[in-house]
């Protein structure tokens, strides 16, 4: 039950929106949200293509959840413009709602109802008829492997089970787009892995577009086709995880050598695949692609000029390094300082 709007508003046909209506599931242009006296989301623009897994990556308090809440019509926007599934998020809320599935950061289940009743509630809110509802709910329970717990009160579910039930619930009405707000927050490693595989499967097999927020670097790296790094309400940089990491120039191989590796260095300089060479307190830092495959070769070269290598380490750039590169802070430091700020804000509010 979806249809395309043929006329695009003038403001959207501007050149800097690079994908057209048929390709995009989300279009955001200069979107902002202010809470009294503080800017949570600051003039962001991005697009999400159909069938894509798109990630908003950033520390807590960066504005990820606020963005998601605006796109899902739960929060009003302060300024800007956005379309989800072809519908304006301020003017056509019900059509936006009909096309999206939502999995919130904190559990949004009724603990006093059973798993099945929670799904029933959801299906009826979305106007699904009785026969379809029964079939789909059975299907969903199989999918999230909770069939044997279907008639247990949700208050007796574990954290991972609740999460799975919520993801399943978000799918009952067959949305074209799934919002996942910190899908694996607070889950153990095994459950996290399980949910990752599950999200990938949904995206591949059912072609559902997914937008997720996370502050776990490895989650964004593993799942997302494209990532927007967001900090202080602004998008700092946006691209595929691979390209983002490539910005840093590839793997870093650090060699600890003996006193005078000059001959060795001159040989290295002739090699095309070594991008940069940096020498600092007895160490040589070399950047290159596929470092792990090049290490044996480095040893051979060193041996040919009788340079002794006493230790070697390989560092593959992660999104963490990308974040550090662009913001000058690690995500943990950023969260710590953000936490301080929030605390102050809270104190101010309470003192009111």
């Amino acid at each position, binding site marked *: 039950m979806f249809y395309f709007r043929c006329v695009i508003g003038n403001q959207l046909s501007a050149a800097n929106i690079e994908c057209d209506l048929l390709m995009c599931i989300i279009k955001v242009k200069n979107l902002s949200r202010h809470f009294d006296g503080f800017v949570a989301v600051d003039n962001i623009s991005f697009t999400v293509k159909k069938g894509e897994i798109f990630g908003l990556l950033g520390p807590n308090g960066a504005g990820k959840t606020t963005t998601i*809440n605006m796109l*899902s*019509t*739960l*929060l*009003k926007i302060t300024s800007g413009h956005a379309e989800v599934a072809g519908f304006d998020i301020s003017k056509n809320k*019900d*059509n936006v*709602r*009909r096309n*999206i599935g*939502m999995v*919130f950061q*904190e*559990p*949004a*289940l*009724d*603990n*006093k*109802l059973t798993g099945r*009743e929670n799904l*029933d*509630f*959801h299906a*009826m*809110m*979305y*106007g699904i008829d009785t026969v379809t509802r029964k079939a789909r709910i059975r299907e969903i329970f199989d999918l999230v492997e909770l069939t044997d717990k279907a008639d247990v009160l949700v208050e007796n579910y574990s954290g991972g089970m609740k999460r799975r039930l919520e993801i399943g619930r978000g799918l009952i009405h067959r949305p074209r787009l799934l919002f996942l707000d910190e899908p694996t927050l607070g889950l153990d490693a095994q459950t996290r892995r399980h949910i990752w595989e599950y999200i990938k499967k949904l995206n591949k097999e059912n072609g559902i577009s997914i937008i997720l927020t996370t502050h776990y670097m490895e989650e964004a790296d593993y799942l997302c086709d494209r990532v927007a790094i967001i900090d202080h309400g602004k998008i700092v940089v946006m691209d595929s995880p691979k390209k983002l990491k490539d910005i840093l120039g590839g793997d870093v191989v650090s060699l600890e050598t003996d006193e005078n590796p000059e001959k060795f260095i001159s040989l290295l300089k002739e090699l095309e695949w070594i991008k940069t060479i940096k020498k600092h307190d007895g160490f040589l830092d070399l950047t290159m692609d596929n470092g792990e495959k090049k290490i044996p070769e480095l040893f051979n070269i060193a041996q040919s000029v009788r340079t002794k290598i006493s230790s070697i380490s390989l560092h593959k750039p992660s999104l963490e390094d990308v974040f550090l590169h662009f913001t000058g802070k690690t995500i943990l430091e950023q969260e710590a300082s953000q936490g301080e700020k929030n605390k102050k804000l809270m104190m101010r509010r309470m003192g009111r």
Partner: protein
Amino acid sequence: MINIKVVYILWLREMKRFFRAKSRVIGTLGMPLFFLAFLGFGFRGMPIPGLAEGVGYIEFLVPGIIGMSMLFSSMFAGISVLWDREFGFLKEIMVAPVSRVSIVIGRIAGGIMTSLFQAILILSISILMGFKITGISSLLWAVVFLILISATFIGLGLIFASRMRDIHGFSLIMNFIIFPLFFLSGAVFPFDNLPGWVRGLSYIDPLTYGVDGLRGALIGISSFPLIYNFTILVISSVAMVLLGTYFFEKSEYV
């Protein structure tokens, strides 16, 4: 605009939650029953000025206590939006593609039903204590008044809920809104005994007409004509429901 299926599922959820929380059922019955028992037996046979000829205090008190139970449970049902917010479930409701009016009507329908259930329980216990009702038509009239009282105060509860960040302000509302509304209504004594300016407040308390209407319906004696009470309550319930819906729609629940 109003989606019956949505109203039904919200109502059903309220019913399931209510009857699963046995302690809630018993807990909400406790206060009205204690009021009824202790005030009823405590003041039994005492001359109370302003009471109509031939009306015992128990007869006078029972409709008042039923009105009180409606006030408490309905305000609570309105404010319980905040509990849903606290536990995150409100977001699940708000993100669904349904009109906000349907959501409010669903909550009101659920709230009326649970409040009505409590009122009928109290009435049944009163009958066991010796309270007499005049007949089936008086019972039907009482139900009409109960529904109107409930709608009025659920609407009011929704207004308060939309103005509050969390449930910590609830005790404030309990002490400074709910209790004054209860005492001003003349639920436990004839409000004519109040000093002049306070009596003025009684006239703007919808519960005054609710309790008076219940008395008219159940024991056949009231300060105002039944139809007068009925009209005022219809107006107050429509106004409160509309205002409650307006405020509910306006506020953000994340």
